């Protein structure tokens, strides 16, 4: 049995029946990482000793009903892990070792989840390809010349390449869904407030969310069950009741009304991607659902609204990195001002600097009304567009990304193309909605993702829609053909 190919559900069954131990499973994953991560570069830190220790503790536990007990997980490197280096893939935090766990980590550790290590990402989650990581880009397991997507590219690639059973990522403008789409795995961005952000290094705090990246929809439900809920450490987390998402795992999906926003299926979307989404609509029709083209009129402006708000928030959030209390400090400086400037100048990469300068400019007195305030008002209009759509429809479907994974280095010099990557994902963050990306086809051997968007706190419906599609199609079962050498 190839242990590294197991899903959460299957591994849990085997552990429960005592057919395998968590220790065996954990060792199998470190072996897999040893064998393959040189090619993929999904991880930036490993947690071998402690992971093996946790796995042995898990094996001694009596509660074998807990689905995540002893299951190996990879964690994005902007989620704080106590006593395990957390860098945000920035030189600024190259040696930062958090003194506390993020709430999601506390929840996983209570269940004796086995933390394998930390995964690569774009610096401070700013980017769509992991190319802005201060370490190295993560390669796409489907084609090693291509990007894994971003910013949670390391997490998505680790899941796709069987270097972990599941992973956590964060999504501010598509950073869970886009890499999940590029790597042919499942990625869920929960409703804003559904999962605590405590211990997540902020990128744009009115849009940041933490979400699971998994091999299938069943696993996604298991992980969301474990991490969702109110947290007193995060005042933006919600007290809305958390249902058991496993109940959503039903293959029947009768008479759902589905909207297809035309603004997110226009000329910017590749032919093959568009065809795959329309084929998914046909599938839902055959299941007895009703699909209709709809208009979300302000969605086409969402990308620019997103960049204004995200940059303004980032420039403010990243003010905390000043070289005083933690993070990089320049070796030579003349006075305090010089210490700040040099420490920040040396610690941040170009993409982060670009966003800080932009954010500072946009929230400047002179530009505040013209850009920032304007963007926040259009954000209201985008929210209302979705509210209007959800009066009539149960969920919406769109491509996750307008195209499949691009070549490493291809887009880094062409920013417009890079921005267009986020066309379909950013409106969802602005409106705070839940959305899931699942595999729905292939174009020239590369995975295509279907995005299913739901009403606030209605993760249950999108999980059900995703599950029904997955169980009646084979896209998630396609195996990566590894080239020798």
């Amino acid at each position, binding site marked *: 049995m190839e242990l590294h190919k197991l899903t959460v559900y299957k591994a849990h069954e085997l552990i429960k029946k005592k057919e395998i131990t968590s220790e065996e499973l954990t060792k199998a994953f470190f072996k897999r990482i040893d064998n393959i991560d040189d090619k993929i570069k999904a991880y930036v830190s490993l947690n071998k000793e402690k992971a093996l220790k946790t796995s042995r503790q898990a094996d001694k536990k009596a509660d074998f009903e807990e689905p995540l007990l002893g299951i190996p997980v990879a964690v994005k490197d902007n989620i704080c892990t106590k006593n395990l280096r957390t860098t945000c893939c920035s030189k600024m935090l190259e040696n930062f070792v958090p003194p506390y766990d993020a709430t999601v980590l506390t929840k996983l550790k209570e269940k004796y989840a086995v933390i394998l290590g930390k995964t690569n990402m774009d610096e401070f989650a700013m980017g769509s390809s992991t190319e802005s990581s201060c370490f190295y880009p993560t390669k796409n397991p489907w084609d090693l010349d291509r990007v894994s997507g971003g910013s949670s590219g390391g997490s998505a690639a680790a899941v796709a390449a069987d270097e972990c059973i599941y992973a956590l990522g964060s999504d501010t403008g598509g950073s869970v869904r886009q890499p999940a789409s590029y790597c042919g795995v499942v990625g869920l961005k929960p409703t*804003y407030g559904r999962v605590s952000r405590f211990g997540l290094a902020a990128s744009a705090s009115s849009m940041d969310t933490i979400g699971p990246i998994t091999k299938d929809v069943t696993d996604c439900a298991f992980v969301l069950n474990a991490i969702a809920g109110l947290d007193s450490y995060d005042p933006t987390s*919600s007290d809305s009741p958390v249902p058991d998402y496993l109940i959503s795992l039903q293959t029947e999906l009768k008479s759902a009304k589905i909207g297809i926003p035309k603004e997110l299926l226009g000329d910017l979307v590749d032919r093959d991607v568009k065809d795959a989404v329309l084929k998914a609509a046909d599938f839902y029709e055959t299941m007895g659902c009703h699909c209709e083209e709809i208009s979300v009129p302000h969605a086409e402006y969402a990308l620019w609204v997103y*960049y204004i708000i995200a940059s303004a928030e980032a420039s403010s959030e990243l*003010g905390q990195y000043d070289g005083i209390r*933690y*993070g990089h400090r320049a070796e030579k*400086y003349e006075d305090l001002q010089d210490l700040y400037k040099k420490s920040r100048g040396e610690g941040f990469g170009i993409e982060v*600097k670009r966003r800080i300068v*932009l954010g500072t400019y946009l929230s*400047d007195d002179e530009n505040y009304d013209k850009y920032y305030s304007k963007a926040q008002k259009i954000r209201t209009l985008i929210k209302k567009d979705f509210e209007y759509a959800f009066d009539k429809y149960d969920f919406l479907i769109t491509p996750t990304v307008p195209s499949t994974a691009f070549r490493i280095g291809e887009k880094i010099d062409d920013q417009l193309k890079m921005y267009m990557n986020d066309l379909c994902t950013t409106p969802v963050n602005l409106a705070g909605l839940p959305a899931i990306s699942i595999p729905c086809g292939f174009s020239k051997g590369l995975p295509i993702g279907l995005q299913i968007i739901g009403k606030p706190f209605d993760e249950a419906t999108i999980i059900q829609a995703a599950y029904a599609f997955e169980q009646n199609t084979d896209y998630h079962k396609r195996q990566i053909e590894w080239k020798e050498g």
Partner: protein
Amino acid sequence: MFIDKDTVEQMADIAHMHISKEETNEITKELSFLLECFDKLNQIDTEGVKATVHPIIDKNVFREDVVQESLPIEEVLKNAPDKDNRFFRVPKIIE
């Protein structure tokens, strides 16, 4: 003209962040492009529209002010680039 090099340098200065000449050029080029894109937003009528701050709930969260245990000082100082006993060390700021 959407943004010039001087403005970019001035913004970096406000953000207490050194940027090289090369970075200034690159950022100026990129931001000019982006600001041109942002101009499209002016077509949208937002008269009377309220700004969204929190995407889902618009309420303040209060709690009782209760004393709780905090991290031990040595843990807090563990990541400090320069420290002295129980303090962060910083350059002299008062002449």
